């Protein structure tokens, strides 16, 4: 999966597509399998990135990575008391309105209004937090300034970020990363969690789950949620019923900024353990080494031997994710230092250029049509804290490549930039004109089936393992559906 943050609108259509389909029911009110955050900001649940508070993800040890706070032993000891769980205040107290009063209020001396009431207590309340409470906020003492990604940025520079000359924000949409080294799966005491072999989707078995909530605390992205009604935890299922029918997940289908890409990545499972246990500065590089070149003859041969369908290999070759992540090196994992090896990659945003003020007059000029990315409004340290475990060089390279593509395209479509500037920009970032055009095309004019290359699910084969597919054809849907019951 790739999310192109330069294109993200922050509209939250994705969140609602998901909510309408999956979590619009009792027990799931507060769940946002897909949410969008304003950055800088504290996110949902609040400060989820701060593992000093939540203790999610893995730690490096000498040999194998270890769950940060919910290792099997430690976890079992805490099985009835899990102090690292986010509480309601970290999410929010869901509320609704007494709309019926508008219809039912008897004639009075003033106009009736629907008062907000708590979903928990039923009492009139003033909402104090929500799943997107600091939307579009940027600088504010309570939110943006408490963003954990500021830890390596000086106080002065932080304050400067909220002045007119540097003020900015961008959006960070988040779903389950369907990690290669999922902490949630490792932490589950019931064995209810698994990663599907055919497509890598991480799931919680709604029959087996016993609601211990270790997945909630172990996931450093806080993308597992406890359903108080069913007593089971639930999480993003990457819309497998849609994927199995060749449709993009609801959040991706509905992404009106067209920022989302989905495709197959082949990988070497042997390398996961080491990649998750490497030095911090090597994390991005090591993760990249896990992914296998779908055009490599040896990879293809091995894949076939392992029973990977030809159609899947073909999909891997057409994968937009492969291009953004490996071929072009434009997309990066979110917080690789959590060591779960997330499978969702982000193209970082280009932001407006910095300005200056003197005597209350604001100037924003540059030597050339576009300023250099060093003068972008967000400090590199900030983006590096999000996407490269602190390595500024990686971020700089990505942003430079994006600018090089823009310069190249400007040169081609207008011609007001010196040709040598365009060539130099490409050369400095290791791009050719051909690659730059390919990046431009997949960024700017991709069609639906170029953004989402979904391999056939071959459901007939999966069903065959349980039942004759022909029989299934006549029977499917018959029977009584049952909702999950508390406990086993």
């Amino acid at each position, binding site marked *: 999966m790739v999310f192109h943050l330069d294109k993200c609108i922050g509209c939250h259509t994705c969140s609602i597509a998901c909510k309408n389909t999956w979590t619009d029911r009792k027990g799931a009110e507060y769940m946002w399998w897909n949410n969008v955050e304003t950055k800088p900001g504290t996110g949902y649940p609040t400060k989820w990135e701060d593992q000093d508070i939540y203790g999610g993800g893995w730690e490096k040890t000498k040999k194998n990575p270890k769950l940060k706070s919910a290792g099997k032993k430690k976890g079992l000891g805490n099985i009835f008391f899990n102090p690292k769980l986010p509480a309601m205040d970290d999410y929010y107290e869901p509320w609704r309105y007494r709309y019926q009063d508008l219809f039912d209020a008897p004639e009075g001396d003033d106009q009736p209004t629907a008062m907000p009431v708590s979903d928990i207590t039923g009492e009139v309340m003033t909402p104090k937090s929500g799943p997107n409470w600091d939307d*579009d*906020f940027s600088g504010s003492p309570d939110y943006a300034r408490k963003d954990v990604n500021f830890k390596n940025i000086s106080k002065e520079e932080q304050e400067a970020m909220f002045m007119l000359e540097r003020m900015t924000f961008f959006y960070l949409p988040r779903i389950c990363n369907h990690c290669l080294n999922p902490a949630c799966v490792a932490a589950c005491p019931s064995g209810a969690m698994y990663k599907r072999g055919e497509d890598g989707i991480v799931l919680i078995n709604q029959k087996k789950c016993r609601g211990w909530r270790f997945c909630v605390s172990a996931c450093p992205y806080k993308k597992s949620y406890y359903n108080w009604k069913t007593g089971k935890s639930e999480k993003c299922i990457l819309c497998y019923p849609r994927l199995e029918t060749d449709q993009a997940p609801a959040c991706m289908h509905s992404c009106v900024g067209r920022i989302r890409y989905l495709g197959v990545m082949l990988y070497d499972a042997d390398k996961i353990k080491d990649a998750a246990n490497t030095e911090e500065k090597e994390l991005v590089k090591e993760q990249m080494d896990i992914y296998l070149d779908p055009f490599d003859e040896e990879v293809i041969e091995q894949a076939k031997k392992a029973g990977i369908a030809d159609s899947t290999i073909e999909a891997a070759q057409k994968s937009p994710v492969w291009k953004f992540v490996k071929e072009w090196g434009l997309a990066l994992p979110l917080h690789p230092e959590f060591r779960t090896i997330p499978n969702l990659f982000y193209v970082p945003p280009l932001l407006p250029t910095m300005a200056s003020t003197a005597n209350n007059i604001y100037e924003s000029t540059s030597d050339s049509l576009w300023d250099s990315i060093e003068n972008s409004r967000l400090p590199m340290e900030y983006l590096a804290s999000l996407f490269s475990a602190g390595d500024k060089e990686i971020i700089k390279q990505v942003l430079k490549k994006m600018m090089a593509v823009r310069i190249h395209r400007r040169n081609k479509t207008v011609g*007001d930039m010196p040709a040598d500037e365009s060539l130099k920009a490409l050369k400095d970032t290791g791009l050719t004109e051909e690659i730059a055009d390919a990046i431009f095309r997949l960024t*700017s004019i991709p069609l639906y089936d170029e953004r989402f290359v979904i391999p056939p699910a071959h459901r007939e084969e999966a069903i065959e393992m349980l039942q004759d597919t022909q029989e299934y054809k006549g029977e499917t849907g018959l029977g009584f559906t049952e909702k999950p019951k508390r406990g086993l």
Partner: protein
Amino acid sequence: MSWIKDIVSPKTRHWEEFYRNRFHHDKIVRSTHGVNCTGGCSWNIHVKDGIVVWETQALDYPALESSLPPYEPRGCQRGISFSWYLYSPVRVKYPLIRGALMDLFRDLKKEKGNAYDAWKALQEDPAKRERYQKARGKGGFRRLNWDDALEIIAAANMYTVKKYGPDRITGFSPIPAMSMISYAAGSRFLQLMGGVNLSFYDWYCDLPNSFPEIWGEQTDVAESADWYNAKFVAVMGANLGMTRTPDVHFFSESRHNGTKTVVFSPDFSMVSKYADTWIPIHAGQDGAFWMAVTHVLLQEFHHEKRVPYFIEYTKRYTDSPYLVELKELDGKYVPDKLVRANRVEKYVNIENGDWKFLNFDELNHQVVCPSGSAGHRWGSKDRKWNMKFRDGETDEKYDPVLSLLKDHDEIVQAEFTEFASSKTWLRGVPVRSLKTKDGRIKVTTVYDLIMAQYGVSRGLEGEYPKSFDDPKYSYTPAWQEIYSGTGKETVKQFAREWGKTAELTKGKCMIIIGAGINHWYHNNLIYRAGTMALMLTGSIGVQGGGMNHYVGQEKLAPVDSWGMMMAGKDWQGAARLQQTPIWHYMHSDQWRYDGNQSDYNTVPENDLSAQHTADLIVKSVKNGWMPFFPQYNKHNFEIIKEAEEKGAKSEEDIKQYIVDAVKSGDLKYTVEDPDDEMSFPRVWFIWRGNALMSSAKGHEFFLRHYLGTHDNAIAEESAKGKVNDVKWHEKAPRGKMDLIVDLNFRMDTSALYSDIVLPAASWYEKDDLNSTDMHSFIHPLSKAIAPVWESKSDWAIFREIAKKTSELAAEVLPGKFKDLVNTPIAHDSPGEIAQSGINDWSKGECEAIPGKTMHDIKFVERDYTQIHQKFISLGENVKNGLGAHGNSYESADVYEDMLQDAKHLSRLENKNYPSLKEDEEMCNAILKLSSLTNAGLSKRAYVNAEKKTGLSLQELGGDNHIHSVNFKDLQAQPRRYNNSPIWSGLMHKGRAYSAYTYNVERLVPWRTLTGRQHFYLDHEGYIKFGEHLPTYKPSPTPEVYGELKNSVVEGTAKVLNVLTPHGKWHIHSTYGDTLRMLTLSRGMEPCWLSEEDAEEMGIKDNDWVEVFNDNGVYCTRACVSARIPKGVSIVYHSPERTYSAPKSETRGRRGGGHNSFTRLHFKPNLLMGGYGQFSYHFNYWGPVGVNRDTHCVIRKMDKVKF
């Protein structure tokens, strides 16, 4: 190398059915959202078990050119929340009535024996009337059955028609494009009745007056795919991420194709994130910045470099070579009117000579009369309306002289006014002496005037700036700093990059603009300032260029066929289409609270500019510039009866009788005395909109004067003694309206305050059509499920109202009646060349001639027993042809064809007509009869346009087959339109629609005086109000605006400029009350404050605050953020009173919404009429409901009480 394997047994994965079962659905139906967001997105509605469960975007728009990003997906966070409404607790399920009204009515009905007499008795008993009026908005709703609801409505209709006349029945519904059949339902009913339709685009302040000023066009803009073609985009007053959510990808995608982006926004808005350069310009000061940009462009690209593309473009497509007289006034030369062709001997006797103009010819230095002017357009000779560089009289070729700089008789020091600092400059202008029938006059070109106005000296003597860095003289980059807060170096770089991009790409520079600019008092000037930079760089009418204004879903693409049906013109002639801003200003008595506009409007001092707006409105109505209903202080039927009694035999006689009566004062216009009982609007239908809240500028005055219920206004009346032509009553009436009926699917503020609420089908429950200017497809709303509970489609509701009203008419008002309809002088009609100056017949300045010096008077026959049958039948006037915007085509054969379809016929007086009974029949009639959706008709319209223009155009049309798409085709897939001459853009072969490409590529004139784009607006009123040249005027200051006189600023409270731009979690008020949007935001519409202001006021994030001024109060919570600039507060449009609204501490009652602190203030020069593009057309022209200049006191609330 190893591969992941399933480590769990397939059997244990059986549970996965759990989520698969949830995803199964039974059917998918295509619909959309009929909300004024301009999105026009096609959606798939998923139905499971007969219940709408969710919606996903449709992805199947026909593809445009392969070089463009596709239109998929379209749809935003708001649209995808819509399914929440269907079964929600705000859904109106049954007809509702306020108990107080119901009890009074039922008792009287029992007493009188029938509904009509009961309604009459109720209205004629002031105590009873006041009783239910005072209960409005205060709860006490009761469920009613449909028959009883229709009975009361029919009684009110017929009582009003009989007692006062039909022009006291009014309806408001906005933006037909969003669901055009539903709009037409009410408008068709009203117009058949003789009622009044209120306009919306101007009322919403979405109409950019600069478009009619410059182009004679209401609005025409690029579809969003064309943004991608631009190479330099400036965005101002439009928060694309927020309000153009499904389109913004074209903008972000263009960046990666090498497009430079600059965003102007006082706050760091959602779209600022996409900017290469963000300019936090001072709120409302964009005009100053653009004046300076044009200064640089004129100096460097026009004067110094003389870029050939720019010069050629300016010569051919703008009024810049046209001659203007420099007139001596108080010893100084000032620019006056365009020189009329018939003033020179060569053209003295030509037809329409007052409406044809002059250029100098480069070849022989003599004057020529270019073809393509309004005089040619409406003349008797064909083939003269074009931009071919031919003399429209002699047909000789010519080459226009752009500037007299090289060839002049003298340099005259002419006076130019700078309104910001009230200074005047004497600047040298090259002139030639021209011999006219009134003697020799000094003339110059518009181009030379523009150079002088912008302060580009070109070596001429005078008070010109010496350099860009000279802050003393307008309009240099240094001059604008103090207003915009933006530095001169930024202006210079911007202008140079702009100019260079346009030069290299031949005009691929674009402005995307929106309500953030258009809602300012001086919006037309800011727009003109930006448009100058586009026109001077040849960036209008080219792909990737343009002034792209997106404020409201104004583009009803098939307006040719729809326009006829919505106004009932298939049956009858004149319609009553009201300019809403002036209607509300007068009827809701906001004029009484308004001071003299010249107190806050920066104008030169003269007899015209010094008047109170209300007086100027009276003039505009009498002169036929603006419509106003009701018309007279007498029943229209009575007036005709009187005329006939006094011997009038013909319609001409009746006209003369009326002219004499208004001249003598025996008959008065209601606009002269809006507070007289005979002037009140009585019945108000509201559908598809939130007329009492989200668009109700001066909401609290609506509550007071229309509804007669409680309000929170403390404003003082101040018009007494300032108005001369409007009668002053010491006590203003409260509760003018007898009955307010709201058709709604949700309990919004309008429903809450109405007398009767009728349950309307929602957007997933009816068949309808949707179009927008954001894309070039037409697509449907469809019934995914039948209307829920007792709701009905708008079409069905008005059909039922019509039926019940006709039935009652048979009892109380049978027979045929002659009605008279006052109509203003209309744009795009031959009448628009009516008044070359301002002369008021009522002041004896000219003769009163209907349709020429005054409004026209037309006659319509009404038969109230036939309203219903006419409503459901397509009348025979369709046979006379259709058209729009001055274009026409033949349609009789299509009508005949429709009569052959036996399944879809209706009967009236033993004759067959095409049936319009069902929603789908109405959809199909529109599709069949429109040039946009019927290719053969498009061809016919071009053939007719060829005759008018003498240009070759018909290859732009379709083939000759009369074949249209039908409603079911649209349900299968959205369809792209045909080219049609009724619109100014071209879209064949997959090219993206861009406005005015038809004009530029085909040389078809704009619908203006000269036929060219206008730099110069020479209407006498514009000269007197100081807006003939592009200029900068300062925003009105809060002190003189008069809205803070009685509002106390105590303790840490502060006065801030409160802006109400469009928000993220709602479209106006719709969606704002859904739990989804409330959960993702703050649970109400907050008030955004800067960190500095909040700190000074002791306000912390999420504290409760009051926002108030003399007009009213809004109570909410604060959002404190560094992205808001000091001095400004934002309350996104539009909160509702229906949720989370506590009581105000300062006023005691429940706080209102954002329109509680607004009140109407107009620019009177926008009232002008009868003059080319300055002529009335519904939603096209007139003052707009500005609101951006509003200031409020903001204070922290101590205690919050619901």
